[in-house]
């Protein structure tokens, strides 16, 4: 495969060089952070700026590496094999005549690979430079036994005169002896309403408005009580079959009249 690639002597030498250092390389197999990492390391062996690496040479280096790993019966993770297949495809595409090229072109794919390697390379270097800085606990040290700063919270209580006397007023009000009284309100009892309504029903057989049964000059509170009691009395009389009730509609005047004797029987 190496011969088919038609790679120049420089490339071949580089591959050769990589092979010379193989022992260490293969022992590190578990140390690679994926196929891109391995590619980057191989690219570094070309000892040129990553912008000038030969992708074809790199592909050969990688494929050789994978082959040798296979020969040594080392177990390779699937993604290394996927990368190998892809690189083999890339290499053949790069060597194909131009007119048969697909989109994206193999040159674009190669450029993309190169850009990715540059970026990974940049980060690998950056990481190394970062780790080489003066680090706390290794190169520089903080105060071993700082006294520490403490902020003690102190509560300042606040109140005012009104809150004070209001509180006292409430205590006094709460604990003062209490006298309960029930107001004497004017009411018409159900019994007296029954009596009144029955008595008035005896006067006529005609329909009468229930309002007419109320005491004529009563104060409003008594009137309300009388209306309620008279209504209940009317219902009671209807239940006993002594009166009938009629109302033309909701909230219309409620009318009542005596039921003739025997009508219910």
């Amino acid at each position, binding site marked *: 495969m190496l011969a088919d690639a038609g790679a120049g002597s420089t490339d071949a030498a580089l591959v050769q060089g990589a092979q010379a250092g193989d022992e260490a390389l293969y022992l590190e197999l578990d140390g690679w952070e994926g196929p891109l990492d391995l590619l980057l390391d191989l690219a570094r062996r070309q000892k040129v700026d990553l912008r000038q690496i030969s992708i074809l040479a790199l592909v050969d280096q990688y494929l050789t590496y994978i082959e040798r790993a296979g020969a040594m019966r080392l177990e390779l993770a699937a993604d290394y094999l996927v990368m190998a297949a892809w690189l083999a495809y890339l290499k053949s595409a790069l060597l194909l005549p131009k007119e048969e090229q697909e989109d994206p072109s193999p040159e674009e794919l190669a450029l993309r690979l190169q850009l990715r390697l540059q970026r990974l390379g940049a980060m690998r270097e950056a990481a190394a430079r970062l780790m080489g800085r003066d680090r706390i606990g290794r190169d520089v*040290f*903080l*105060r*071993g*036994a700082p*006294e*520490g*700063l*403490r*902020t*003690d*919270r*102190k*509560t*300042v*209580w*606040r*109140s*005012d*005169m009104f*809150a*004070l*006397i*209001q*509180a*006292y*007023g*409430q*205590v*006094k*009000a*709460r*604990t*003062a002896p*209490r006298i309960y009284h029930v107001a004497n309100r004017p009411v018409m009892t159900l019994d007296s309403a029954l009596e009144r309504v029955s008595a008035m029903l005896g006067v006529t057989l005609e329909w009468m408005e229930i309002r007419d049964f109320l005491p004529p000059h009563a104060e409003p509170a008594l009137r309300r009580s009388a209306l309620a009691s008279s209504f209940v009395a009317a219902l009671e009389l209807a239940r006993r079959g002594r009166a009938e009730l009629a109302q033309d509609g909701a909230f219309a005047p409620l009318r009542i009249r005596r039921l003739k004797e025997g009508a219910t029987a």
Partner: protein
Amino acid sequence: MNAQGEPGMLERAVEATLFAAEEPMTVEALAAHLGGIEPSEVREALALLGQHYAARGVHLVERGKRWHFETAPDLAHLLRREKEQVRRLSRAATEVLAIIAYHEPVSRAEIESIRGVQTSAGTLDVLMEAGWIRLAGRREVPGRPVIYATTPEFLDHFGLESRRDLPGIDELRAAGLLDPVDEAMEAAMRFDPDDPDEDDEEGSDAP
């Protein structure tokens, strides 16, 4: 340290070592740490450092033959700062304070009988912390209960010349402050004002 104030290497090394050390160090420990130099050299460096730091916010001090840096004594207040936090007195505490003010000197049992609810020790602690009440001796009755009274700070905070300036019961009534309706309103507006748990907000040692 030379005349220009540039410290020498050993002085800097001792300075950094003491700065980073977790415990005060003896001259011997310093000498060993710095690669087995002569204790006399360390002593010299310590003397220079001591001079240098004498005017600064941090001093080099020796305690029991061990050396360390510590905050200059005149700046010790910077290590512990007080931060004031203003809080409004709770209703329970206000009631207790009012009762003490109107009835002083008064025992806890008396406060409770006036309030009609138990009073947690925390409530009285808060009033003590505020500086508004003080222990005013003991009542000479069985059990010799502690009695409480208000302080000059109390009068100060509430803008009173003396306790006689507190409005009397008649004035409170005139102001509507004895009106039971107020209490009913209060009850409707917030949680049960008689709830003995309310005292707990001051402290946990409620009876």
